[in-house]
């Protein structure tokens, strides 16, 4: 692996590049928030970031620890009640990109953030769906960012919290969904997109220093590669500087490293 940046920095940078100034993006906390703000501070200054706490067009100087930090409200164009956020702005179809994280993800980009094990007697009780089930259905399309391990990219989900492409093919349309659903998954090893027909996630770009075998080993299903897999351009000096400054400001503001 090329020295000079970490796999998770590559992941956040690659995700940020998928966003544009024209997007209205519904942002999840954690890595999605880092990617969205990196985009805003580099190539997509016009992007509108929306957080489920009701903050619209927010321009935080530090990354929020929680989805409703004061920083988000203080730097927002406006802050609306949470019911309005979900009713008018999300369900009303105003959001172009929903940006989600995932505890577990399957080959059709369905997401589990509810339980590991059975629902009634879970091995691990995860936080739950929050805004994600409707972000996954109401945004024009969704991007997912996740760490690439066999425990995250699994063969079979324990629970479908947020619907991606279901069982693949036209499953979304059969359920009456008119939005595109997950169109990009960015991990710390590669980028995947759903196949046009089957909707199965397919590796389209490998990050610098990553071999196909690394991805195969870290994926809980026999992962497919697109013909002519690309090489993800490494982070530029500018991208890394802005991202690291953002994390440094955030650590200072939150009283120490996460």
């Amino acid at each position, binding site marked *: 692996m090329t020295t000079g940046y970490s796999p998770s920095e590559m992941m956040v940078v690659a995700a940020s590049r998928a966003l544009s100034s024209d997007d209205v993006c519904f942002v999840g*906390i*954690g890595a999605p928030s880092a990617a969205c703000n990196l985009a805003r501070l580099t190539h997509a200054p016009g992007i509108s970031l929306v957080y*489920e*706490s*009701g*903050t619209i067009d927010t321009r935080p100087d530090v990354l*929020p*620890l*929680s*989805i*409703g*930090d*004061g920083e*988000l*409200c*203080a730097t927002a164009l406006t*802050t609306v*009640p*949470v*019911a309005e*956020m*979900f*009713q008018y702005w*999300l*369900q009303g179809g105003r959001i172009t990109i929903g940006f989600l994280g995932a505890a577990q993800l399957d080959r059709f980009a*369905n997401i589990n953030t*509810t339980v590991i094990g059975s*629902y009634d*007697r*879970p*091995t*691990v*009780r*995860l*936080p*739950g*769906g*929050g*805004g*994600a*089930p*409707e972000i996954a*259905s*109401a945004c024009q399309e969704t991007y997912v960012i996740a760490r690439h391990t066999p425990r995250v990219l699994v063969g079979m989900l324990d*629970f*479908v*919290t*947020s*619907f991606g492409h*279901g069982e693949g093919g036209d*499953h*979304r349309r059969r*359920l*009456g*969904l008119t939005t595109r659903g997950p169109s990009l998954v960015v991990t710390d090893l590669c980028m995947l997109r759903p196949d046009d027909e089957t909707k199965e996630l397919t590796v389209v770009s490998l990050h610098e220093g990553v071999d196909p075998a690394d991805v195969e080993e870290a994926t809980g299903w026999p992962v497919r590669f697109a013909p002519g897999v690309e090489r993800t351009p490494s982070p530029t000096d500018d991208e890394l500087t802005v991202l690291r400054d953002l994390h440094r400001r955030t650590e200072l*503001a*939150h*009283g*120490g490293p*996460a």
Partner: protein
Amino acid sequence: MATIVPLQEAIATTVADGDTVAMEGFTHLIPFAAGHEIIRQGRRELTLVRMTPDLVYDQLIGAGCASKLVFSWGGNPGVGSLHRLRDAVEHDWPGPLELEEHSHAAMANAYWAGAAGLPFAPLRGYVGSDLRDVNPRIAEVTCPFTGESLAAVPALRPDVAIIHAQRADRDGNVLLEGIVGVQKEAVLAAARAVVTVEEIVDDLAAPSPNSIVLPRWAVDAVAVVPGGARPSYTSGYYDRDNAFYRAWDDISRDRDRFTAWIAEHVRREAP
């Protein structure tokens, strides 16, 4: 009609064992002091309703106040798990905790329906989600005009809503601003409403005609509790104590350490 009373009295006169209690505040304005008063008063068998249980419900659950939780996202934001919530769900400690689990959109809509006096809320939601299979209170309705199939959830109508706000005037009119979450809806959906405030002022001085103001006749009890939202925050008064949210991960991980913390910081101390 609002009466201005001490916190102890506000909770004692509104919250009874077995009640359904909604303490709202979305990251911001979480009514911690009121939650701690409920623990001190030893309330039991509560159904706790809250979109994001947060540390306040982790504490109430670990202290044995709750038998059921209605929620949509139960983590320590940006930090990890709520260990007391997990211990109750995974190991029945200190007792079993029944879950009614929703999405944020459904909870917000359910409060909205409660405030609007409707029996249920329709939403375009839960499509393809297994939450439908584990929560029998998520149903399906057909639009009588278009035939579209929609999700439906019953209105939330708590016995008591408890919120924290910036200030009230001497008549008990309440102003809240910043990230305002679902507090207005929760108050209007509930049979009784308690508001803790940072201060009582002569003139509410609402910053805009469109400010969120709860008239005194929509509120039952107002209690002055400076710092009543700590370790969450009150915009214009103090910031979120993110370091405490991080520290809670360790404090709450162990049953004994948690119980000692509650004994020292909640049961012993009255505001």
